[in-house]
């Protein structure tokens, strides 16, 4: 089992969720985060003073998936979120030791 953490542009969340769901992904967890990276924040002016915003709003998507499904999910996310512009985001894959569905007590792949 793998655990995928994807940092994406907020505007892509809806499309990604639809595509993933269509591909059979049955669950995911979403967090609002702020990201710092190659994409530099904007420079704004507040009351005549310039300042730069370092962190930009991003969405963090977390998915626990079977090995096969996880490869597919990475592809889907890449496809949907790739605009080619800096700031599209990153996908990180982790080993997952165990998963458990609280409601039923099922573990492993059953729990995903």
């Amino acid at each position, binding site marked *: 089992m793998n655990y995928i953490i994807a940092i994406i542009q*907020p505007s892509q969340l809806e499309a990604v969720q639809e595509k993933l769901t269509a591909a059979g992904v049955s669950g995911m967890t979403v967090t609002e985060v702020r990201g710092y990276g190659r994409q530099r924040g*904007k420079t*704004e002016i507040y009351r005549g003073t310039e300042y730069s915003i370092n962190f930009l*709003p991003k969405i963090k998507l977390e998915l626990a998936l079977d090995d096969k499904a996880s490869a597919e999910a990475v592809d889907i996310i890449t496809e949907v979120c790739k605009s080619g512009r800096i700031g599209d985001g990153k996908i990180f894959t982790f080993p997952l030791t165990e998963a458990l569905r609280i409601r039923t007590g099922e573990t492993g792949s059953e729990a995903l």
Partner: protein
Amino acid sequence: MSPLSKLFGLGGVALAATILPLPAMAATDPETAFILNSLSFLLHGFIVMLMAAGFCMLEVGLVRSKNATAQCAKNIGLYSISGLLYWLIGYNLMYADVGGYIGSLSIWSPSDPSITDAGYTGDGTDYAASSDWFFQMVFVAAAASIVSGAVAERVKLTTFFVVIAVLVGIIYPIQGSWTWGGGWLSEMGFSDFAGSTIVHSVGGWAALTGAIIIGARKGKYSDDGSIRPMPGSNLPLATLGTFILWFGWFGFNGGSQLAMGTAADVAAIANIYVNTNIAAAAGVVVAIVATLVMYGKIDLTMALNGALGGLVSITAEPLAPTPGIAAMIGGIGGFLVVLSVPLLDKLKVDDVVGAIPVHLVCGIWGTLAVVISAGGGMGQLMVQATGIVAIGAFVVVTSGVAWYAIGTAMGLRPDEEAEYDGLDVAECGLEGYPEFTRSS
């Protein structure tokens, strides 16, 4: 022709009162009457002025938070532009030497001939010139505010401001001269006491025209026909705005009696307050019951719109009806709002705050309902319809030209990314709630 000609076209009650002979001993003296007439404009005017805050809060509460700053900027900007343009062009175009279809192009300045070095020399039927200007100015600002809500979240601010300048400086005053300036509609007998048509529908027509020309917010209507609601970000502020508007409406309708120098006038104003309040209350109750029956829940935004729908509906004739008739007129207004909000969505007209149902639909209804409360039968109904159609056509055409021409010249909408990120960042460079908002 002076602004007093606004009086013509009212139900007979108020008018009659001012021309009847009064017993010499008991009556208010002319100077006191002048003071009280002016005072009515001033105090009713300042509470109407607060409606600018009401519109702003209503609208900022109903937009998404990423457009909150821009919505505030639009509202304080439009109120300011209205105040300047109505002085530079609007007032005299509406009230100075109206020949039938238009007044004269000149800058307004105050003049009180009845106040001389020897004291007040009038007969007590006039008032301070500035008090009237002030009262008329806050009206035009209200009309402008209506537009800003409907086209929220997607129009460039600078373009919006120029369109508003045309609306308040030219379009509004010209049609206003037809009735309140003593022009052709007033001679025909068109009756619109405080402006269901002349203020509210005018704003509503300009809003509708703008909403259609600008188009819907990105993502609002999908190709598959589905509609995506974009819930308002701060309903407590929207509620506050509604209460403030309700409050200001006592000035809007009450001050439109245009005099407070006789017992009959003040009694008329009092009756207007009562009818205004009852119509709004009925609008709320009907909207609450309707959403409860239709959707199983109480839609607060509909209740708020219901209040305003009731208020707009009674505005064409707040004096003549009994409380019962006022309740009926306002209640129907509330119901029309509940019906027309989803209808507009079906027609893919994206009206962010419900300005069109409230001000246009109820404005038309209220103007027709004058026949119910003040009588006049089929003949008057035709006159009312004539006014509605004439003013509607005029505003749709002129505001359409304005939206289209100015939009072409200056750009109507920010680009897609700016709209996605919100106008706050794109147009104002600062977020309305930088520490609260979630990113999606």
